[in-house]
């Protein structure tokens, strides 16, 4: 028995067939995973970060496993916006899924250049990675200072033809303040969390595990932090929220929706199972069936306080 369950969600006027997306950086531009996942079954493919010119990224090792998670310091290696538009977008447009392009830069002008270049392209939304160091302001990430975040949001919005998602960094004292800064700058949505900055040391070699010394922590180890931040951010602003951080199953996705997310992104779990995204869509559907919930949107922000003594 399959009743008609609604899985569609809407963010900033863009309709998604279901709320499961890929997390930027873990899924390339979809081509590599196309052999493992029916991309038509996903709500959206969020691409790896695209810069104005090719970026070589960091030296290796770029990857280190940690308990329940991993550190990465890829350094946003990417071929730049021209190759991306000529090669990767036509690939993605073969599929019946939404395309969200993640944008990275070293200066405000970098971001604006990419956003402007994408304005005439078949892209549904833009996701701005503000965890990159701002080279003109001493290297502190755009997303770690509320004024810088508001300013870059406003700048990007001037050039953007598509709705803009600001992807927030969790490496801040008050995530609500950052969410409000993005909203003040005119963001159409926010996504979080990006990775938590971490470090691993190889005690046998007495060296850093990563050539970059620090890296971004992701995977199930960060999930409780991510759920808490999604909850706080979604209550701080009226913007739709895309939640991510350690999602491995349909029930993990439900947790983020209950915390206040309208959609979720799946990242590191792709490395544990290249087919995981479609399993999460199925798992989410199974959850709704199990509890007789007819519309996935009924879960958004629906978490209740623990009942006290009566």
């Amino acid at each position, binding site marked *: 028995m399959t009743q008609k369950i609604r899985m569609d969600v809407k963010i900033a006027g863009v309709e998604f067939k279901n709320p499961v997306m890929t997390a930027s950086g873990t899924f390339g531009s979809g081509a590599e995973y196309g052999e493992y996942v029916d991309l038509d079954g996903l709500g959206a493919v969020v691409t790896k970060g695209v810069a104005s010119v090719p970026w070589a990224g960091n030296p290796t090792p770029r990857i280190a496993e940690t308990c329940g998670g*991993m550190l990465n310091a890829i350094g946003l290696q990417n071929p730049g916006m021209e190759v991306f538009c000529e090669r990767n977008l036509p690939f993605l447009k073969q599929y019946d899924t939404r395309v969200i392009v993640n944008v990275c830069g070293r200066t405000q002008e970098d971001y604006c250049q990419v956003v402007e270049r994408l304005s005439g392209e078949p892209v549904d939304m833009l996701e701005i990675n503000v965890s990159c160091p701002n080279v003109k302001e001493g290297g502190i990430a755009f997303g770690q200072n509320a004024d810088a975040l508001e300013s870059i949001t406003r700048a990007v919005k001037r050039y953007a033809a598509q709705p803009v998602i600001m992807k927030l960094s969790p490496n801040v004292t008050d995530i609500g303040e950052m969410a409000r800064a993005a909203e003040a700058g005119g963001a159409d949505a926010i996504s979080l969390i990006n990775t938590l900055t971490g470090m691993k040391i190889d005690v046998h070699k007495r060296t850093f595990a990563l050539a970059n010394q620090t890296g971004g922590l992701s995977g199930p180890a960060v999930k409780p932090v991510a759920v808490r931040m999604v909850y706080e951010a979604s209550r701080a602003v009226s913007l739709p929220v895309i939640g991510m951080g350690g999602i491995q199953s349909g029930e993990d996705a439900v947790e983020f929706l209950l915390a206040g997310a309208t959609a979720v992104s799946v990242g590191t779990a792709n490395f544990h199972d290249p087919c995981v995204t479609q399993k999460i869509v199925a798992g989410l559907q199974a959850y709704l069936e199990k509890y007789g919930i007819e519309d996935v949107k009924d879960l958004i922000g629906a978490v209740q306080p623990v009942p006290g003594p009566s």
Partner: protein
Amino acid sequence: MKQKEICRVLRQERINTSEPSDVGIYSLWLETKDIARKAAPGQFVMVYGKDDSRLLPRPISICQTDGTALRLVYRVAGSGTREFSRLGPGQTLEVLGPLGNGFPLGEVQGEHVLLLGGGIGIPPMLGTAVKLGKNATAVLGYRHETFLREEFAEVCPVAFATEDGSSGVKGNVLDVIHEGGLRADVIFACGPAPMLRAVQAYAAEEGIRCWISMEERMACGIGACLGCVCDTTQEDPHSHVHRKRVCKDGPVFLSTEVRL
């Protein structure tokens, strides 16, 4: 759609019994549905553990195949490979593959190939030797205890070295080549970075076509995450930054193509 295969362990044994247990090298035979049939020498698989605290798969080179059976010979390097080493017959393991590009057997037909294997780079050379047969000479470099040597000897001539000089030539694979005056049209090599660097230089000096198999930490194994890149002499077609993906563009590269 491709997916991971659940493979049953046929048998597993430790093959370097005289060395300390923390440097155990294991030979694992798995029954596969498609992986062994599709595998080519020099390709690898991703092996997934069952412990949720370790979420990344381990890339392991394919040693050889026999029909639907797949043989992996690997070193216990940490908790993930230690988990694999405890598996016995009938237990299962999730495996993705075969992945990457193996040695270009089609490009060396009729030529004599030197197969250079150092340490845990030796296993992928066995399947390659089986395919090349008498067109190959295997040159193996060990630390102390030799392993798989008799199996190589069944299919091609073998020369070897040990670092401590306990058997064979004292030194490494290049010492064996120099001492034995070995010549070849082509070199296939797999081993630690210092060995590959020396082999790369030797091949350049001698003007021998040489392919080497690279190793790097991986996450996805399928070319998406860009965790396992190596530096290349030419601009790469994926990112246009002189960095290729070991998992997808390799792990076997022309020696003139990579910077070690």
